[in-house]
């Protein structure tokens, strides 16, 4: 496995030089159009990632067969997950999945597990940032949490987020237990909605992904308090007038010891053969080596992840139990 993945890594570098002329190294390739399932709504982060990949694949002609993005965002993406489960054995469907792989089944008893799919590769890891409205007086995480603590029992601060018992809600519960505070969590349909509701002062804070709040951050309407990661984001180019992504302190630096990341990975349906996995893995490595992809990563402040099925599997095996534990503590597990 290791020697093969080094070879792919080399292929990716070579691919950056002569993408179109790269000979097909994998033994399998699609024989009909590939359906790229997005388990989320139009315009959201998953949709953007899928369409960026689609554009790059088209532009560099990385695949002979067409690549069709298909939105299956019903029931917060459960529709897309179930469509993938039912397509077991069909290598002409791929999905760009995220933590909802386990949060939805745990919260709703949906008969689905990531083990129903065949992992291909991580594309990126998405960060979470604690944001508040610039018009609030709290300039640091500590000030914000102190203020939140004071009103915890009387009129808790309002924390906005996407969906209920999902990543944002889980992270909010995580903060509550670590910092000994209480928020009134208000679930919205999308991160974009959570962002504008924060600007309109209908909520006090949110834990949006960088891409979901960037527009409001740049317009100096929201303040980035800290990022939930072990290290700061690597991007040092100024995004707002005064700050780069790298200027946001980690939550640990500010005294809130939490790191929480969300995977964005590619899967094919259950029963995928190593050849099929190899084809898509190689395809995504080629995508990852293009300047367009690098630009996309930086613009959305995504964290780079190593390619390959082994890395993804290792991540899932650690991340799923963590979610189970957090969701159990927060009493988010489905009861019936």
């Amino acid at each position: 496995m290791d020697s093969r993945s080094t070879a792919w890594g080399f292929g990716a570098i070579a691919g950056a030089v002569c993408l179109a002329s790269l000979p097909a190294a994998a033994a399998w390739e699609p024989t009909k159009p590939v359906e790229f399932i997005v388990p989320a709504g139009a315009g959201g982060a998953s949709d953007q990632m899928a369409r960026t990949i689609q554009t790059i694949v088209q532009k560099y002609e990385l695949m002979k067969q067409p690549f069709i993005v298909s939105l299956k965002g019903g029931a917060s993406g459960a529709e897309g997950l179930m469509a993938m489960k039912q397509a077991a054995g069909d290598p002409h469907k791929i999905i760009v999945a995220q933590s909802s792989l386990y949060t939805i089944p745990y919260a709703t008893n949906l008969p689905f597990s990531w083990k129903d799919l065949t992992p291909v590769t991580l594309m990126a890891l998405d960060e979470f940032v604690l944001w508040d409205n610039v018009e609030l007086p709290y300039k640091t995480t500590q000030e914000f949490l102190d203020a939140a603590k004071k009103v915890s029992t009387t009129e808790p601060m309002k924390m906005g987020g996407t969906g209920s018992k999902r990543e944002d809600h889980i992270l909010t519960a995580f903060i509550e237990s670590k910092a000994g505070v209480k928020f009134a969590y208000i679930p919205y349909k999308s991160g974009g909605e959570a962002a504008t509701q924060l600007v309109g002062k209908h909520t006090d804070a949110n834990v949006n992904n960088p891409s979901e709040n960037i527009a409001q951050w740049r317009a100096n309407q929201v303040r980035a308090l800290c990022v939930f990661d072990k290290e700061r984001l690597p991007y040092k180019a100024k995004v707002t007038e005064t700050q780069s992504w790298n200027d946001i302190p980690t939550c640990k630096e500010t005294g809130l010891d939490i790191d929480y990341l969300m995977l964005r990975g590619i899967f094919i349906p259950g029963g995928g053969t190593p050849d099929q996995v190899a084809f898509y893995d190689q395809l995504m490595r080629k995508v990852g080596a293009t300047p367009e992809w690098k630009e996309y990563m930086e613009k959305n402040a995504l964290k780079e992840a190593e390619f390959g099925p082994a890395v993804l599997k290792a991540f899932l095996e650690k991340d799923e139990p963590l979610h189970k534990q957090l969701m159990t503590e927060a009493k988010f597990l489905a009861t019936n």
Partner: protein
Amino acid sequence: MDGTAIESLLHGFVVLLTLKNILLMMLGIILGIFVGVLPGLGGPNGVALLLPLTFTMDPTGAIVLLSCIYWGALFGGAITSILFNIPGEAWSVATTFDGYPMAQQGRAGEALTAAFTASFFGALAAVLLITFLAPLVARFALRFGPPEFFAVYFLTFCSFVGMGKEARHKILISMLIGFLLAAVGMDTVGGSLRMTFGFSDLLRGFDFLVAVIGLFGLSEILLTMEEKLAFEGKQAKLDVKVVWRTWKSLPRYWATLLRSAVAGCWLGITPGGAIAASFMGYGLAKRFSRDPDSFGTGRIEGVLAPETAAHAAGTSALLPMLALGIPGSGTAAVLLGGLMIWGLQPGPLLFVEHADFVWGLIASMYLGNIAGLILVLATVPLFAAILRVPFPTIASSVIVLCAIGAYAVHGAVFDIWLMVVFGIIGYVFKKLDYPLAPLALALVLGDRAEDAFRQTMIASRGSLGVFWSNSLVGSITTLALLLLFWPVLSDIVKRLRKPRGGLPTEAASS
């Protein structure tokens, strides 16, 4: 302020007026009309399908093409509503109420002309608003939190119950069935699945478009087959002058047009607004009419009002998308995704950093709508003549169209069967004289209203006082309650007036 807006707009026209962009505009409109005519394909799906085509184009050209598809689809959506009682888009439902009866009476050309012209008028009003008041409107949109959203949805529901001409209990029953169906699927606020009974196909919930294609389109075919196996609109003449004749009568309805345009612009900046706007535009026209009972039998105002409101809303829905990054409609959501792929970040800074693009887009709203109006008006005689085709041919084509439409929404075969079931429900409703529109309205706005209400309750910790906590939400809520109890109130007013004046005039009640 005004000076800079006009300057920027003129600059936008300069950016836009290249041969390539004008050709793209025409292409977009024509594609859009086709997309709009096929029910179910609709604006969002049509734009999503064509999105990849634009990735290699420059952003301005791309958005011109896509937004013109959007305008074309908006225009085209009215065609099937009027001719076959199949709403192409959610906001075309209200157009069927009077548009379809008009077509049946052989006035299809008149109805189509009225619909297209009203659409144009509504869109124009909204574009003017965007041009001159964009920053102000964007700030106003930010004031909408959960209580305000709920109040707007509540207002729409109340205006339906209060002003419907059918028996109140029938309106309520129909609406409650709609709420029940809207609850199926993921519960955003609770985070769990509801009433899916383990069926994967129910995870999506009941899609509004699938439901209305069956409820309105298929049920109409069933009813016609039973009754007389013929469309009454058969005698529709191929008449080129119909456009001109209809236009001459339009200035008379200036108040209706203006009212609807205002309602549309106002609701357009709230998500789901276009749908609420079309129903509300219709409701307002009926409310202010001297003869409200004749609505639903083929009144031209019944076509003008919802179309003006829907297009004013559909167009102004683009404003929150550009200025705030929140899409006001499904199509706007797809356009939003497109913007980001072209490297444009919608949000407060878009107007500053990509002024070229923004003003190019706004200029294309003017030009695209003018081009669209000319193109669709040219097709009026053609589409009106479709009704001359013998019924068996039409009926089978319409059924095929319904099936394709239902399938196209999510690419799911299950939805075709669902559409058939809704067709039968629609048939039964019509036989029992239950109104279908409240069901459709509740189905499309029910879960949003529920989310907004529960979000409000979380934030206010269960206090209903929050619906009067500021002047905006307070006035909407009060207006909603007034409309809900309007029949009761107007009765009281009548009774109070009787002893004094002795003349229970029409004016007192309307």
